[in-house]
């Protein structure tokens, strides 16, 4: 049975909280929504950023996702 969006969101946040490295690639989230197309997963990840549950971390050439509390802010 397909997962609901809420279940997928929860799985994505759980994954970002438990991962060995705080930053995850978008592809790392695909497994949280096995029935979805990657572009749909991307939309959910970006919506989580808007809600403040995840945040972007960018090297300039690559963008990754992280749980805000796990990221060292260069300015603090």
């Amino acid at each position: 049975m397909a997962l609901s969006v809420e279940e997928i969101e929860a799985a994505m946040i759980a994954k970002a909280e438990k991962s060995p490295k705080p930053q995850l690639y978008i592809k790392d989230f695909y497994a949280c929504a096995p029935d979805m197309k990657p572009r749909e997963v991307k939309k959910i990840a970006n919506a989580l950023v808007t809600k403040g549950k995840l945040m972007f971390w960018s090297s300039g050439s690559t963008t990754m996702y992280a749980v805000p509390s796990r990221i060292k802010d260069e300015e603090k």
Partner: protein
Amino acid sequence: MAKHETPLLDELEKGPWPSFVTDLKRQAETKPECWDILGQLELSYKDRITHWKHGGIVGVFGYGGGIVGRYSDVPAQFPGVEHFHTVRIAQPSGLYYTTENLRALMDLWEKYGSGVTNMHGSTGDMIFLGTRTENLEPLFWDLTHDLGQDLGGSGSNLRTPACCLGESRCEWACYDSQEICNHLTQHYQDEIHRPAFPYKFKFKFSACPNDCVAAIARSDFSVIGTWKDNIRIDQAAVKEYMADNAEYPSNGGAHKGGDWGPFDIQKEVIDLCPTQCMWMEGDELKIDDAECTRCMHCINVMPRALRPGAEKGASILIGAKAPILDGAQFSTLVIPFIEVNKESDFEEVIDVIEKVWDWWMEVGKNRERVGETMQRVGLPTFLSVMEVEPLPQHVKEPRSNPYVFWKEEEVPGGWDRDVKEFRKRHAA
């Protein structure tokens, strides 16, 4: 007065060339933080290691791209570059600015940043180099509200699409590169501003094979104008070139300064045709168009006599990149001819784009450009993903692999095989 001694950098001011060191020293007269760029770079030359930290979390609200965060790892020594973020400003199609707009942009950057710019970066955007985090939101507000302009892409986003000036000025344009560039920029706002992919993805549009935006070298998805029918020849104008009429200078007069002697069509055009498909028959110029690769050479040399054909469109090439993991590579021809059609809202091109994305997002590894994914799986596999029949034009070199792998549907009658039964006798 110099704030730091920079003997190593000062070497770069010697010689006849323009020097970024001189430029930055001049800029430092009004923007003292520029001294700290020089100071930190001098230290890097001494230490032989960069003093920029890589990456971060800065951006403007709602956007996952457009700002590239940079911090100094020696801020106590160089406080002016403690934060030194780059801002990408989306450029207008074909890089048409009014002087009024350029002044407004420069005023904005004087107000919120270091005043240092790079016009334009290799992605295409106008690059503003060096500002602090607290300036980003006010700058973004003024940029979007007062100037009606937007940030470009960075990170794993669709990067700001770029195009040649095409039909606005150029008689060789085979499609409206500015129109499609603008259309797709609007159509893919989400992909430009929020990360979408395993890695960056770039579109570039050149309206003819002269490829003025270097789409073939700089974009994952290169749309290059071409024509299907024959080069249009005006034989009377060919004769004027051959007679060295001053009204018909070769290359439109671009090389007029040199003493090249009289125009020699054999030496300058026919012998240089890469596929040797041109010849003279009496005083008529002939072209075997089936062999022409659309290199543009003959048209560039004799623009008043030769023109692209009338049945115009584009070729789509996929997979260029500059070296990060492996060497640089050009895009590979995938779609030989496609109509680039405003009436259909460029639906034909969009179909190809989304086919590439759907596959690459699934199959591409993290930080793998689509050109690398293509190389990994091989062109035959990629062509079948794209549902394109292989053509001789897809072949870069004679085969180097002696094996031929047939698929069942490619062999008349197919075949039956029971792998389990086979493995009973031949363990894997």
